[in-house]
């Protein structure tokens, strides 16, 4: 049995890297796919709109943990493969992020007044030119505060990867506890580490919100 000391703390810090890496990968992937989903969601074609809406509702209406279980255990059984934890978590959290970011982008695009679309149309811009030069630049600005807010939600959500054994910060805490039998120190320290990552992001998001004078995003994930 070990006691919790600097080398144990170093182990936790090393695990923080995985939390951050997972969050970053999922965030970037989510931005890329979420963008496509948002475009589909506002498109003229009702099939695209329906598919995008269904995607968003499934990922926002089911627990992240279940999504993870399906990615890790479900697909492994389905395709008779051994899926690595990293593959499962990065795919699952990317898909999860894409849904939330897509919804944020959709809201931002729909917040642009109809007259902007009309004015762009009346100078003979094609649909994609209207999006690219008029609508999306404005939507992008609006979407920044809630996007930063979502990043906080994502970092917290990655803790759930511990349950399938992926070694990020929370799992490292569990492992440390098994070795040192000192959960009363370890878990609060783990919480503090998450706080150090998330709180500045939350404050930044609030600052951005104030600057854009928009009131959104008081609900957040667990």
């Amino acid at each position: 049995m070990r006691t919790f000391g600097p080398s144990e703390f170093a182990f936790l810090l090393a695990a923080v890297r995985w939390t951050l890496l997972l969050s970053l990968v999922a965030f970037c992937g989510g931005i890329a796919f979420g963008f496509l989903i948002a475009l589909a969601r506002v498109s003229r074609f009702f099939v695209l709109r329906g598919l995008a809406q269904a995607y968003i509702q499934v990922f926002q209406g089911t627990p992240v943990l279940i999504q993870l279980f399906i990615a890790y255990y479900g697909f492994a059984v389905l395709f008779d493969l051994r899926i690595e934890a990293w593959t499962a978590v990065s795919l699952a959290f990317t898909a999860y992020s894409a849904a939330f970011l897509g919804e944020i982008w959709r809201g931002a695009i729909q917040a642009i007044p109809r007259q902007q679309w009309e004015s762009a149309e009346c100078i003979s811009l094609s649909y994609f030119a209207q999006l690219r030069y008029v609508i999306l630049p404005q939507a992008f600005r609006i979407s920044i505060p809630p996007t930063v807010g979502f990043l906080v939600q994502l970092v917290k959500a990655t803790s759930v990867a511990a349950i399938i054994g992926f070694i990020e910060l929370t799992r490292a805490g569990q492992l440390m506890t098994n070795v040192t039998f000192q959960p009363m120190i370890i878990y609060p320290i783990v919480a503090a580490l998450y706080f150090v990552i998330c709180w500045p992001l939350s404050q930044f998001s609030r600052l951005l919100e104030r600057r854009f004078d928009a009131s959104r995003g008081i609900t957040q994930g667990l």
Partner: protein
Amino acid sequence: MRYVFQFGIVADRTDELVHGALSTLWLTACGALGGLALATLCVFLRTAGPRPVRWAVISYVEVIRNTPFLVQLFVLYFSLPALGIRLYADQAAILGLAISFGGYATEILRSGIEAVPRGQIEAARALGLRPFKIFRRIIVFQAFKIVYPALASQIVILLLGSSVVSAISATELTAITNSLQSQTFRAFEFYFVAAAIYLGLAFATKVLLASLYWLVFVRGREA
């Protein structure tokens, strides 16, 4: 893909899944009501309390909103015993959910109170309405109406987030699904059905809360 779907096996265990779903609903209800009560208290303390109390509430809210629920749960279940408080898994689950929801709800309620139009409060004062009770009724009622959608969303988030309590083996749908799939090796079918059940529960909750809104704030006001 050589996998043969066998949803029939899932159907055989319907009773257990229903029990899981009901447990999830029970946890959600307890967490929401407990958290709401806690939040109401906290919002009051935050506005009317002495400075250290206000800071305590602000810290509580910030800690809850910037740490993962799973870690909060682990602190309640694994760390508290060091202080002599040993909770059963189900107790820790409800307490954790309530404390977590309370944090978010406090912030939501606070923004609702700030959003009550100043004019209403001044008008009430000017009319000389008997201060405490009736005055509170105007502010609280209005604030609640304003934040109801945000609270409703947060309750659905609570419902979905309750799946995490399976990590400490508390009784709810995900935990039960876990044990069922490990018994039958039908991981995909069981998790798929569990996802569908959660979707259904989330939808039903949204509908229920929306009807409640209509009953209390729309129909109830036609007086």
